[in-house]
């Protein structure tokens, strides 16, 4: 019997360190977030109910945000066991279906004083009305991604795994003129 399989993060190969403009403080920081939990909840419900179910199965640290019509993205740094995922499905059963996307999507944190400038280079949403805690499915350049405003200048971008490196590269390009601090896992 071969040994245990090991998990290789999608962004394992990114170049860490200072990129782009060298002098001064970096305008943005890019951080590959841990591949913990990403779940899509689909069904006729509301955010409150989805949040309540999430908390009830012990996933209180996860964010719950809008991901489209009758769709929510539940995301957090810690992976959930199949048992917990099953409990979540159970808690939402009858109205909302749960699709585990913990491997299918990858999260990148974009932060820093110039994070909104970098966001604006690819995303056409008006972030003035995008308050902390808001999430939305949209485009960054040509890549579909979910944007979640975790803090005033901290955004979590969630993208299909197969495009994770492509999105990372786009963000580095967009951040070059401000100086990028890149943090791998």
């Amino acid at each position, binding site marked *: *019997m*071969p*040994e*245990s*399989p*090991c*998990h*290789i*993060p*999608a962004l394992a190969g990114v170049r860490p360190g200072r990129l*782009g*403009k060298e002098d001064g403080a970096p305008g943005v920081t890019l951080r590959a977030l841990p*591949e913990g939990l990403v779940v*899509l909840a*689909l*069904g006729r419900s509301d955010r409150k109910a989805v949040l309540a179910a999430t908390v009830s199965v012990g996933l209180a640290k996860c964010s719950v945000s809008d991901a489209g019509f009758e769709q929510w993205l539940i995301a957090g740094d810690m992976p959930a066991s*199949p048992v917990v995922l099953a409990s979540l499905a159970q808690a939402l059963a009858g109205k909302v*279906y749960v*699709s*585990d*996307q*913990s*491997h*299918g*999507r990858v999260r990148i944190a974009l932060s820093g004083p110039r994070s909104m*400038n970098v966001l*604006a*280079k690819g*995303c*056409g949403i*008006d*972030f*003035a009305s995008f308050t902390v805690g808001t999430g939305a499915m949209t485009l960054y*350049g*040509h*890549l579909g991604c979910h944007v979640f405003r975790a803090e005033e200048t901290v955004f979590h971008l969630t993208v*299909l*795994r*197969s*495009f994770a*490196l*492509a*999105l990372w*590269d*786009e963000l580095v*390009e*967009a951040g*070059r*003129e401000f*100086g990028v601090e890149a943090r791998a896992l």
Partner: protein
Amino acid sequence: MTGFRLPRGGCIDRSRTLRFTFDGRVMVGHPGDTLASALLANGVGIVGRSFKYHRPRGILTAGSSEPNALVTLGEGASSEPNTRATMVELSDGLIARSQNCWPSAAFDVGAINGLLSPFLSAGFYYKTFMWPAPLWEKLYEPLIRKAAGLGRASKAPDPDRYEKSWAHCDLLVIGAGPAGLGAALTAGRSGARVILVDEDHEPGGALLSTGGDVAGRSPTTLLADLVGELENLPNIRILSRTTAVGWYDDNLFGAVERAGPDFLSTGHAPRERLWRIVAREAILASGAEERPLVFGGNDRPGVMMTGAVSSYLHRQAVAPGRRPLIFTTNAAGYHAAAMLEEAGIEVSGIVDPRTEPEAEWRGRAPVFRNAVVTDVIGGRGVSGAVLDSEGRRSRIDADSIAMSGGFTPRIQLACQRGCKPVWSEAHLAFLAPERQNGLTVAGAAAGIEGLEGALHDGSRKAASALKELGLDAKPAFSAAPLNDRKTYALWRVAGTRGAAFVDFQNDVKVDDLLLANREGYGHVELAKRYTTAGMATDQGKTGNLNAIGILAEARGVTPGEIGTTTFRPFYVPVSFGALAGSARGKHFQPVRRSPLHGWAEKNGAVFVESGLWYRSSWFPRPGEMTWRESVDREVLNVRSNVGLCDVSTLGKIEVFGRDAATFLDRIYCNAFAKLPVGRARYGIMLREDGFIYDDGTTSRLADDHFFMTTTTALAAGVLSHLEFCAQVLWPDLDVRFASSTDQWAQMAIAGPKSRSVLEAIVDVDLSDDAFPFMAAREITLFGGKLSARLFRISFSGERAYELAVPAGFGESVADALMAAGAPYGICAYGAEALGVLRIEKGHVTHNEINGTVTADDLGFGKMVSSTKTDFIGRAMLRREGLVSQDRPQLVGVRPVDPRDGFKAGSHIMRPDDQTVLENDQGYVTSVAFSPHLGHMIGLALVKGGRTRHGERVVIWNALGESYIEGEVCAPCFVDPVNERLHA
């Protein structure tokens, strides 16, 4: 030869010098110079040669509408042709060259064209096309092609970076002259989000080149006050060096921002940035374009606009000459005269065709009333002018001429969404509607006179615009000065001897316009194309209204009845770089990587692009020289041992819902509602017109949970189709979808030894009873350490399984399988071998499912349900044309001589038939070399093919000059009874 730098004044930094070269000559300038002002300061008169006639040309303006001073900047890969010298901020080491001349601007062999001018008049392109016909291809076309264009583009890749960005605001203000500044300040003080854009490198507009008093202060002080306040308001973003180029639906604006003179190709900033600005309201405060006067020799070096003279004097302390002559129909000429005299320059005279010139002229220069300049004296520069005053001609000395025919409001942007401007006799101008669809025109662009008038107009219009948004704003400037309008129409001077130019860049003269009208091309749109007036890179900004006026007079109508040509984006030429942004080279399109990409790479895969995906195509081993060697080996090994292939790119969709089974039953042409949990089924999805759309294998994991696969290419299309059906056709069904293509790394383990390999890692009984063909289950691996899904399905025709594991574990599991498979001779195989194996078995892909085939055409007729009441495509499938047995049907095809090869796309013909379309029997859809058979095989769609097995045909490819003897056969070349599935 006449320009020079004044010893004092200007907004230049005389403490620093910048060295630059023009046509190889080293010159110096200062920060604050443009290339144009620096050339003038260095006494350069001739900066290029005109397009058709190669006439020497000098600098006409000080801004964006410059038609003459087009130079090539830079060298090699960075060289940029047709750059307006008036818009280039001087930098140290700048290299510039004149265009359209050889060997130099000063002495140009091409000037001989001037002698040919009678033959090169308007419409000559059109006329050469007509007669004599043979000369077009042999003589005219090559000559015209060589002469075409002004500058030459570099063919090397562009080394600079470009970017794009979005921006949002409550109020976009286009133009930072007095009207724009008034608007921005009004809006800014109210707290609204404002974006202020201006083409110049600093705000100010007309305030940058004016003397006198504005709103009780000098223009310089006023400007400093306004900008100072604006810069301190956090809700205002000022974008300098930014040209608004287009107005689009929903008040979306395009604007191009240029880097400043300190731009470095090796730096981290982009050279240009394309802004897409979403504005709730916008103010167009773009000012007005000064019009040239049309007289003989008005294109000579040394003839300039009065506004340009004022600008060069004020901003760069550069004078046009030591003895300038002013020719003007309005106050602008007098302002320039005053500034020149203040700088100590002797103005030789002010020529004014009006009877009542400006009452306040108190300068030294003599004013010639009721007079016009008919001709310039001089060829390569100005040495004097011919005046005509009520019929009497005289000569006057001058070394330069500053002219002003009036001001044309810059309304282009406001007319880009379809509205036609309206002629105003009072303004002697075409005006856009003051307000339409969220865009308000203000200041000189709206025909408002004077700088104070502009401040006021911009302020109150901004307040009105904000009111539309429910925001309260108090106009920053509210004194309404008198609108003292005096206009004088002089579209062209009569009685000129020399050529009088209307469009400078395209060398269009008055005579050309008159000729166009005589020949029946007097309509404004026809005259434009016939003469090419307005068609150069400057889009006729300086000359268009003169052209319209001349046409109006020729036809005896008003300019309003002539009208303007249609305005369209872009307002100025925009580089392809800006439009591409960062999407070039490696970033042209995103690279889509399979979760097994790392595994494939380290096993030496050669990749192929499949849409955005990179798919492993084959895995060469040391010693293998061609792809065929590798692929043949992989194919043979899969059928004799076992192989591992990455199939992660195929679409995967989770289908949830109480009505999921019902829904799938309506989507597929075969039955799915009763598919048992734990089973997979091959499904064919039709289009509503009865033709096959896509195929895949769908498994039932629970009563209300199905797992669907699609082809790689149509994964996105199928999901959209499912959503359309669920939301638009049957919204009452409870069904939801989630794409899981990226969630699972999916690998095929195929071959007679596949079970043995898998048994090493799976926690489930793989005996045929426990895990039969088409079983589909959620399982665990490595003693419960990892959840996975296992499907016993086969694309290769061998005993095979597909294993799906969470993507992050994909590489590790693939490694484990390769290790477990080593004793069994496992090999990695790629898309090429996958293709050969499936062609050997006659399994179809989108080569066969090409949008023109039905299920029956491919031999799946029996799969189509006859009992289901509704499924997509059911109704149209019954059309007589789709059930005919004469249709192209799937067959195999083999060469009679096993050494012959053939290509997909070849036609199937009967050996004795004439090769005409009516005799076409079909075509080859897929080909492969089968290492099992030792020859090439193919799949084809042949008319009534199922009844023609054994028939001899010609595999016909005229493009490749290949006509192979072939034989139609059953579409399966290996193991036709499918024994190996259970081996």
